[in-house]
């Protein structure tokens, strides 16, 4: 049959082509990546691996060029991989289990205590990394039981961005907003003027907890007691805003990015968002301003610290530590920290570089103050207890905001779960 001959020939050709292609792909890819030669070493001798949570940066970005430069200065080759930040913890754990840890690992700060608890990270003492210049409130996130497990690359935190045009049209003076009552009153005026009040992120992930904490801490509540009167009052604040239409229903599913997109439409008066949005705020197309998040009775609320830590995972070949230490020092020295933090739109972790940032851009003063007042989520020696509290907390405010439970019931249930998990 002619058709079967043709089919056979076609099949054969396709098979040959794909096999060759596969082999070519396999061959070329193995030359590119650092192969792991069994348990123990995570890179061949002259190559040091760095993992970071910035997949948005490719080889042409300043960040990667900096890594390469630090490598060249130290005399080693660098193999850098950017991972999705939500995935990086699991990748780090899996790699550590298999003896495939990178030499330098940059992770989000609340995760440091988890990795330290798992025995994945070395202490800064062991690595001989100098953390004396780092602000204590920023370093606290990486400290457990008096030991430090990394050094922050920079910090960011939350504040309230506002749309000057919307506020002026509604007759609100942002400088007068000092506590919750005045904020809610402002939102009422904005709604009466036909615009939308405030947008934030209340999603059921760590991002939501991050956004909720300034209000929670601003009410005077403590993470060890979610269902205190103060804790519930914070949830009541959010819940009332949704009920009265001052905040949109979409906050329940908003990430900080989508919340920002809502603000960027120009319809909202306020957005609770972070330092990293500064670049986007410039492009917003309307005049914006920033005020610190008010606490319930007046004053600035403590906001949680965001930002990543540079850590050094444990390696079986401890001889590599010397070079890793040089890499880390290179990344976090004053000049490089200034460049990196400017690229990432973070605030520096040391006083000296913060001053340099403000000198270069006076608008950053508000943020520097906010960062100085900020608190680590895993501080107060909460360490790995924090994730066990954070998850019930976000489940709680999700239940209250979506109307499934009252704020009181939601947080009582949350506290029960958290207490059971942190026993």
């Amino acid at each position, binding site marked *: 049959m002619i058709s079967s001959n043709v089919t056979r020939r076609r099949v054969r050709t396709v098979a040959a082509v794909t096999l060759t292609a596969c082999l070519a792909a396999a061959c070329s890819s193995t030359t590119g990546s650092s192969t792991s030669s069994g348990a123990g070493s995570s890179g061949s001798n002259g190559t040091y691996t760095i993992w970071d949570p910035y997949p948005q940066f490719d080889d042409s970005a300043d960040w990667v060029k900096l890594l390469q430069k630090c490598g060249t200065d130290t005399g080693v080759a660098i193999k850098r991989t950017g991972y999705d930040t939500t995935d990086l913890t699991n990748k780090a754990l899996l790699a550590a289990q298999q003896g495939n840890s990178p030499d330098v690992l940059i992770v989000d700060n609340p995760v440091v205590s988890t990795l330290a608890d798992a025995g994945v990270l070395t202490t800064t003492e062991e690595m001989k990394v100098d953390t004396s210049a780092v602000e204590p409130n920023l370093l606290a996130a990486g400290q457990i039981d008096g030991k430090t497990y990394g050094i922050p690359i920079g910090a960011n935190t939350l504040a309230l961005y506002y749309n000057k045009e919307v506020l002026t049209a509604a007759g609100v003076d942002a400088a007068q907003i000092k506590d919750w009552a005045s904020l809610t009153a402002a939102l009422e005026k904005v709604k009466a003027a036909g615009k939308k009040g405030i947008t934030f992120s209340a999603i059921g992930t760590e991002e939501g907890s991050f956004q909720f904490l300034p209000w929670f801490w601003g009410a005077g509540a403590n993470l060890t007691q979610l269902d205190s009167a103060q804790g519930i009052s914070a949830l009541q604040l959010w819940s009332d805003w949704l009920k009265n239409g001052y905040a949109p229903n979409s906050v329940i599913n908003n990430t900080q990015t989508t919340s920002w997109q809502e603000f960027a439409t120009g319809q909202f008066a306020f957005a609770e968002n972070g330092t990293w949005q500064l670049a986007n705020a410039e492009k917003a197309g309307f005049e914006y301003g920033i005020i610190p998040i008010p606490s319930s009775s007046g004053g600035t609320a403590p906001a949680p610290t965001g930002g990543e830590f540079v850590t050094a995972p444990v390696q079986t070949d401890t001889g590599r530590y010397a070079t890793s230490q040089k890499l880390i020092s290179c990344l976090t020295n004053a000049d490089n920290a200034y460049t990196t933090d400017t690229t990432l739109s973070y605030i520096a972790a040391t006083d000296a570089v913060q001053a340099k940032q403000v000198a270069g851009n006076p608008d950053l003063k508000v943020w520097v103050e906010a960062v100085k007042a900020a608190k680590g989520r895993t501080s107060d020696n909460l360490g790995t207890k924090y994730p066990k509290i954070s998850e019930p907390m976000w*489940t709680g405010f999700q239940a209250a905001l979506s109307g499934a439970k009252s704020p009181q019931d939601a947080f009582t249930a949350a506290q029960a779960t958290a207490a059971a998990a942190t026993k």
Partner: protein
Amino acid sequence: MAPHVTTRASVPAVPETGAGARRPRSARSGGHWTAWAFLAPVVVYLVAFYAYPLYRNLDLSLHRYTVRSFVQGGAPFSGLDNYRTVFDAPTFWPALTHTAVFTGASLVFQFSIGMALAIFFHQHFRLSATLRALFLVPWLLPLIVSASTWSWMLNSDSGIVNSALGVFGIGPVNWLTSPDWSLVSVTIANIWIGIPFNLVVLYSGLQAIPSDIYEAAALDGATPWSTFWRVTFPLLRPVSAITLLLGLIYTLKVFDIIWIMTKGGPADGSTTLATWSYRLGFGNLLPSFGPGAAVGNLLIVLAMVFGLLYIRMQRRAPR
């Protein structure tokens, strides 16, 4: 794809064991070994790639793992503790019910819509082949894209669905943020994603039915509906069965769509066993591998039960 259906026998998709073989096997002694030689790649495959992960999953569920013991080893054996934790958890019954509703509704709608479309496209009008191919485009997209697109369309304030409803005077529905609607929304998205699979497989099955059967039915004066119900559908039974079974297995495993659209929330409103398993093991800052693996194994057991049911059905229905 489908078994070439003839009027005399339908072919079970899962063949029965060779014991008491009905066909005379090759007299050559190598016949049995030849057969297994053909099967060798698959067997090696199964052992190398499925046995180990399955074993790991079982192992994870039978020990008490902390992050420390996950990395360093030395987790204590904890027997069925993880399973007990899972059964006692307040999320268990909601997750189970949601899984049942989600899977049931998805299968019913995916299958019926797929069948209707397959029959419609079987009629060979102009462009039918191209349109049929276009129906597969949803499968090309990475799930993060399709799930995100649905999220955007169903957004309470800026979504196109609520806008469209507004045109008809219906108030905005909180598709993704209300505990009542979140399961409905993810089910709709899942049905959308499942239609192409059903369409392709059922269409292939339809193609295998010789057209003289339809002619015969028409000659007997059958209406389109009774032709379908009395002729087409029975002939499609084996194909339908395998489609439903595979659909069930794939739907039980679904978590990407739900995770990206609602994260299983709000307040566990759209949590299924699959999303719960993921959340326990990977979806939070502090992984609990033991319970996560336990829920995963529960899912596998559930799927196995249906698989056994299917095989029993096949054995009992030679035609």
